[in-house]
C-alpha cells in the first residue's frame, strides 16, 4: 500500500515539476508548482512527518503560491513565445548536458550509499508530530527560532521597500 502511494505521488511530483519548466503559460507553471508541492507534502506524510506536511501545504501551497500568482497577475505577463523544445539552441543543449551530469552524479552517490546506513529499529524511529518537533524546537533551537522571526520581519519590510513606488524621490 505504502509503496503504491509512493509511486503515485513520486510520478505526480516528477510530472508536475516537468510541467512547471515546460509550460508556456506562467500561470499554468505556478498552478503545476502547487500540484508538485502538495504531492511532496503527501510524501512527507508517508515519511511520518505530519507537521511538515501541514506546514508545506499551508506555507508553500498557500502563502508563497498566492504571492507568486498575485505577482503574475499584477504584472500581466503574456505567454512566452518559445518553450524549451520549440527553439533548440546550443544553450538548451548545454543546459540538458549539465542537468544530465548533475543527475548522474547524484544517482551515483545514492547508489553508493546503500549498505552504509546504520540500522534503525522500529521503536527508535520518531514520528514528526507537533509534539516531537516542538519539544526540540523550543529547547535546543529556541534562539534560531527567534532569529527566524527577525529574518521574516526584515524580509517583509525589505520587500515592501523595494516594491513600492518612489513618487517623492522621482525628481531627485
Amino acid at each position, binding site marked *: 500500500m505504502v*509503496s503504491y502511494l*509512493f509511486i503515485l505521488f513520486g510520478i505526480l*511530483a*516528477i510530472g508536475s*515539476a*516537468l510541467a*512547471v*519548466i515546460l509550460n508556456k503559460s*506562467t500561470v499554468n507553471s505556478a498552478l503545476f*508548482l502547487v500540484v*508538485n508541492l502538495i504531492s*511532496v507534502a503527501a*510524501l*512527507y506524510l*508517508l*515519511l*511520518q*512527518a505530519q*507537521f*511538515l506536511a501541514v*506546514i*508545506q501545504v499551508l*506555507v*508553500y501551497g498557500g*502563502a*508563497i503560491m498566492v*504571492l*507568486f500568482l498575485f*505577482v*503574475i497577475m*499584477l*504584472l500581466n505577463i503574456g505567454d*512566452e513565445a518559445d518553450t*524549451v523544445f520549440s527553439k533548440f539552441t546550443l*544553450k538548451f543543449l*548545454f*543546459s*540538458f548536458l549539465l*542537468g544530465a551530469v*548533475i*543527475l548522474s552524479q547524484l*544517482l551515483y552517490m*545514492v547508489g553508493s*550509499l*546503500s549498505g552504509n546506513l546504520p540500522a*534503525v529499529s522500529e521503536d*527508535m*524511529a*520518531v514520528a*514528526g508530530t507537533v509534539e516531537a*518537533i516542538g519539544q*526540540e*524546537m523550543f529547547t535546543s533551537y529556541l534562539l*534560531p527560532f527567534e532569529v527566524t522571526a527577525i*529574518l521574516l520581519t*526584515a*524580509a*517583509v519590510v525589505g*520587500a515592501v521597500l*523595494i516594491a513600492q513606488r518612489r513618487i517623492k524621490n522621482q525628481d531627485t
Partner: protein
Amino acid sequence: MIALNWYLALSAVLFTIGVIGVLTRKNAIVILMSAELMLNSVNLTLVSFSAHLGDVHGQILVFFVLCVAAAEAAVGLAIIISIFRNNLSIDITKINLLRW
C-alpha cells in the same frame, strides 16, 4: 517503509528538473519557481534522512529552510516587480544593463 534510496533518487530527479528549469527558461518568475523546486527537493532529502535515521533534527532544519524560502520568495518577487517597473519586461535576456 520504502527504502531510503528511492526517496533520494526521487529528490535527485526533482533537483535536476529544477536546475534545467533555471538554465533554460527566460521568464524571471519561472526561474524563481524552479529555485523553489530545488529547495523542495532538498527538503525531501532532509525529511527522508530524518525519518530513516530516527532523528527529529532534520525536520527542524526543514522548518527553517521553509522560513528562508518564504523570505526569499517575498524579496525575490519584490525585486522582479521593481525590475518590471524600470524595464517593462521580466525576460532575463533583456535585462542587460551590467552585461558587457
